[in-house]
């Protein structure tokens, strides 16, 4: 049960229930669709860019608690960041949820550290990373549907 509590931390459950930056971003500069065929998670990530900086980011769709909370916390974390900073954060996040090479109190991760429990559930890594892959597709202006397979 303790591993389970690590996975479903309060912050995650809260963001699942009350996601931040949820809903369409009308007239967004960029957007991309993400799909996790394993569990049927579907989401759209919308991005506004000013030069190299993400000025606004929103998402909508349906998914499990891990994928929804991850999308919600991601939007909080990348708003105002440059694309280079965002990519760096994505890499750090992927390390956190896969090999656990990153300390849970890594300052750069901030609140994203609540996803450290995912590393004990390899099948759930895709849930946690779907929003990030979709964000990357959006900023790269790719229009094929991103899948985690």
């Amino acid at each position, binding site marked *: 049960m303790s*591993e*389970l509590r690590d996975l479903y931390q309060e912050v995650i459950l809260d963001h699942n229930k009350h996601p931040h930056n949820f809903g369409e971003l009308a007239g967004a500069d960029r957007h991309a669709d993400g799909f996790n065929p394993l569990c*049927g*998670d579907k989401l759209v990530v919308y991005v506004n860019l000013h030069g190299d900086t993400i000025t606004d980011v929103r998402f909508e769709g349906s*998914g499990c*608690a891990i994928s929804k909370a991850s999308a919600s916390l991601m939007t909080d974390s990348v708003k105002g960041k440059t694309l280079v900073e965002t990519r760096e954060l994505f890499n750090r996040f992927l390390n956190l949820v896969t090999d656990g090479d990153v300390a849970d109190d890594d300052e750069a991760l901030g609140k994203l550290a609540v996803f450290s429990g995912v590393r004990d559930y390899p099948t*759930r890594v895709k*849930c946690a990373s779907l929003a990030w892959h979709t964000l990357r597709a959006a900023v790269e202006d790719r229009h094929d549907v991103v899948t985690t397979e």
Partner: protein
Amino acid sequence: MSSAETANVVESAFDVQRIRQDFPILSRSIREHKLVYLDNAATTQKPQPVLDTLARYYATGNANIHRGVYLLSEEATAAFDLARGKVQGLLNARAAHEIIFTRNSTESINLVAQSYGRQNLGSGDEVLITHMEHHSNIVPWQLLCEQVGARLCVAPIDGRGTLQLDEFERLISPRTRLVAVVHLSNSLGTVNPVQEIVRMAHARGVPVLIDGSQSIYHMPVDVQALDCDFYVFTGHKLYGPTGIGVLYGRESLLEQMPPYQGGGDMIRSVTFEKTTYAELPHKFEAGTPHIAGAIGLGAAVDYLLRVGLEGIGRHEADLLAYGTNALSEVKGLQLIGTAPKKASILSFVMDGAHPHDIGTIVDSDGVAIRTGHHCTQPVMDRFGVPATARASIAMYNTHEEIDALVKALEHVRETFTV
């Protein structure tokens, strides 16, 4: 002895605790809990006689079959042929050579689509399936339709997951060349009236393939009584090994069909100018088959019949009714698939909890269920859900295990009631 007393004797002969002892995996623990295995629709666990048969074959009986003139090869060939006979007995097929060994149900269906289908379907012809098919009974027909310019027609299901039989019958058109229908739905639990379906199709001269992947280990199947033309199933759901499946085909159809794959074992003679094909069933079994798998499947058939499908059916129906009641009382839970005729499957969604989260949380209590679309995305779309959680019952499950599932679902509710 009165008939009621006789029935009691038969009923008490099914001893689930005795059966559980035959399955070594059931005594292992998962995350410090006793394993509660309720993902039987995905694959069943294997009883000791099957495990022993596999080990014994490789330890003392391994040789390639056919054409070997030494004793070991003769023994392996005999064991392989014996396994075919056991499957023939299970299905009550007229002849052993109507049983073709494949890798699984998927390969069996692809064989029929590519061999029978390409030979008999042309532009404008139709294949009729139902809305509750597994992807393995959809995609092979889509591939065929693309190849020959045929059309895939889909008979609808109602809100409980029952096939709308009148619509189905209406959809059998003068262009219908094949009906392919699931016997027991893997995501809804619906048992289709296959006998009625065969009668309707045959009345219009249309052959019928039945996907028995789920039904074969829950109920007796008699292909002669059903009068179906093809019946497919996979070994690993029937308490046998993975990698071995079965296609039953009516002899007159199999005889006319071209080979599916070319290679060794399926020929009579080969020259660069002309090759002639072997007799049934070898025409459809190119290359060295999964010999151990077939022999293991034979042992699984023996086991299944020794326990008895009637007793298994009664026990599982009892558990399904118990589980249906118990789950219905879980607050915020909705069963998907409530057809009047069901077996084994309890598919459900819960308010505020995605099926994937349900699966992870019940696993922490040692309860193994499947979550997702169960390779039936059209069914998910029909019910407007991205996925379901699915518990599926087999002969070794108990009332206590259903209770364990319900208790684990309470943990799901606790987690998501913030």
